[in-house]
């Protein structure tokens, strides 16, 4: 059977599974819609969190990026996993004990202020929309490559599916669908990785194969081979970085803190029954995430070797164009791989210096990896189903945050406090419909700056929510004036820096112009420090925190009595 038939079968099967789950898990109350009735088992919640977290970017792009930049790619690996340690130790248990539905709920109640709540709502919606646009685009890309439908039709099919289970099931539907999506995506990622590891190193575990010798009889370690090839071809050494240490440090911190401050991640810890479960679910989530994140760098290194050897040939003289491997033909059609015969010898050559004749898009590495390792067609189709699962699960989680922010934080807690539970549920569903349509629009007409705004999402989460929540839990005397001033200072500082270098003056975006050598990707860390300093300074010169708020903080610091905490 060809790739397309396999893709139709596997994608069709996985989609029917998601829809079946959505029908089974319809939400009947706002509690079920927002936080799945707080009845999700920690293991299931861990899987759902992992699927929620691992987006099209983790699934499709990350290994590709690492494959091209080597050691520097470690910032994504450490940044996007280390954030869970912060979540588990500093945020999740306390927020669960607090026992409300959303992050703006916490900010608004802890800082006894509508202004603080509205600042938080605005940040939550902005961060989530930034993210969701990228996901819908990812869905479109996978559809158009593997089903050969128009990219816009792909986005619309994706929207219809998300619409169905997010609007009907709310958090309950989303959570159980995400459990299924996690299983699909991790299976899809591991199967080609394991086969490739066997082929390249003879080791069944990619994580170990990564540090083993290659099977070509040379007895060389894989990483030494990649380093050797890189040097020979004029690339940076794979196991060394090219970014400055300061920048790597700040980017890694911004990603970690940003992860811990992202509303669609935090909200997952409201769905479990007890504080104890909130702690352990972060652990399960990280295990499920780590399975993919420790495999990805191995996939990256295998793909690097396979790619260089299949283009340049074993003699490193270049492969004649008529004998080009199949993956080059397939991906040339999409325009993501290009060959230009600069020296006119009819042979392809790939290198990091002026001998180079290839341009290869980073995003194809994972999707092309089964073809690189000459695996059967069904493995390729499996990857398509996995990529879709990753993109859809993240999109659904984000849409829920957006609809909750509108129906709960903006309407119920803002403009229309007299709503009944039923009206609020209806408002939540309408908001979800609206959010799906906006997201679809952004997917079909992506603003040219989707890639640039990702830095924004993490920077904003790091510089706004994270300090406000941390201070709210660990510093009883932090008052509303301090928190609001801190959040605004953090956001303004971070956005100004990013907007300047990404939009106003992109030409100046070079290390020489950066403050302290920190790139716009890493500036969220500095924004976070600004937030902390401003919060504490303003707090010193303004009014004392009311006693009942101090008691509230006291009460979220230990688990007992979490069961009865609920919606007011």
């Amino acid at each position, binding site marked *: 059977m060809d790739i397309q038939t396999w893709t139709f079968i596997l994608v069709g099967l996985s989609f029917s599974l998601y829809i079946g789950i959505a029908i089974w898990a319809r939400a009947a109350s706002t509690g079920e819609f927002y936080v799945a009735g707080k009845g999700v088992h920690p293991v299931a919640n861990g899987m759902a969190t992992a699927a929620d977290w691992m987006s099209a970017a983790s699934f499709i792009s990350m290994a590709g990026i*690492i494959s091209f930049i080597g*050691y520097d*790619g*470690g910032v994504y*690996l*450490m940044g996007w*996993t*280390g954030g*869970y*340690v912060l979540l*588990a*130790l*500093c945020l999740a*248990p306390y927020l669960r004990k607090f026992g409300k539905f959303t992050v703006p709920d916490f900010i608004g109640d802890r800082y006894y202020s509508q202004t603080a709540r509205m600042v938080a709502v605005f940040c939550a919606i902005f961060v989530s929309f930034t993210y969701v646009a990228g996901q819908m685009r990812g869905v479109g890309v996978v559809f158009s490559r593997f089903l050969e439908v128009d990219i816009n039709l792909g986005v619309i099919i994706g929207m219809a599916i998300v619409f169905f289970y997010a609007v009907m099931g709310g958090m309950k539907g989303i959570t159980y669908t995400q459990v299924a999506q996690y299983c699909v995506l991790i299976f899809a990622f591991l199967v080609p990785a394991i086969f490739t590891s066997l082929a390249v190193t003879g080791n069944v575990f990619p*994580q170990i194969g*990564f*540090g*083993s*010798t290659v099977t070509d009889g040379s007895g060389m*370690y*894989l*990483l*030494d081979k990649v380093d050797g090839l890189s040097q020979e071809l004029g690339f940076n050494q794979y*196991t*060394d*970085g090219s970014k400055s*240490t300061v920048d*790597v*440090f700040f980017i*890694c*911190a911004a990603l*970690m803190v940003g992860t811990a401050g992202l509303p669609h991640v935090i909200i997952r810890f409201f769905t479990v029954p*007890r*504080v*104890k479960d909130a*702690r*352990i679910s*972060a*652990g399960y989530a*990280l*295990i499920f995430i*780590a399975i993919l*994140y*420790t495999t990805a*760098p191995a996939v990256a290194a295998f793909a690097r070797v396979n790619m260089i050897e299949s283009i340049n040939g074993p003699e490193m003289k270049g492969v004649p164009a008529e004998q080009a491997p199949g993956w080059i033909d397939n991906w040339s059609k999409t325009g993501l791989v290009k060959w230009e015969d600069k020296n006119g010898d009819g042979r392809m050559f790939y290198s990091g210096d002026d001998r180079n004749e290839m341009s290869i898009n980073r995003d194809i590495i994972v999707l092309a990896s089964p073809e690189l390792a000459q695996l059967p067609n069904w493995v390729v189709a499996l990857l398509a189903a996995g990529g879709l699962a990753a993109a859809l699960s993240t999109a659904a989680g984000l849409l829920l945050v957006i609809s909750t922010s509108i129906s709960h934080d903006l309407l119920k807690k803002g403009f229309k406090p007299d709503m009944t539970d039923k009206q609020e549920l209806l408002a939540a569903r309408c908001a979800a419909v609206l959010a799906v349509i906006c997201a679809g629009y952004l997917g079909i007409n992506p603003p040219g700056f989707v890639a640039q705004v990702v830095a924004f999402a993490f920077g904003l989460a790091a510089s706004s929510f994270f300090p406000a929540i941390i201070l709210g839990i660990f510093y009883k005397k932090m008052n509303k004036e301090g928190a609001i001033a801190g959040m605004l200072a953090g956001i303004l500082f971070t956005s100004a820096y990013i907007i300047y270098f990404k939009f106003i003056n992109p030409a100046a975006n070079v290390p020489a112009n950066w403050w302290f050598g920190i790139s716009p990707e890493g500036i969220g860390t500095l924004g976070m420090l600004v937030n902390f300093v401003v919060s504490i300074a303003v707090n010193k010169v303004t009014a004392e925190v009311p006693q009942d708020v101090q008691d509230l903080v*006291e009460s979220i*610091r*230990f*688990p*007992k*009595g*979490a*069961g009865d905490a609920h919606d007011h």
Partner: protein
Amino acid sequence: MAFQSDEMARAYWKENLTIMGSLLAIWFVVSYVCGILLVDQLNAIRLGGFKLGFWFAQQGAIYVFVALIFVYVAKMNALDKKYGVEEE
């Protein structure tokens, strides 16, 4: 009040912060110190086919992160019991 006295509440919080602080110190060392600040020095040491600093940045730190959360859960559950503030 769930605690028997204010002193107990303070002692619980202090122990909680100690657990958190020491685990976060390890978190910082494996990622920022081993994976970033001292990566070049550690790369002089080999771990099979890996340079050690590179291994921390792309593998080791992640394994330690997972372990840290499970140690935290075990310690906190024990602490909750000790002070009688665990959930039913």
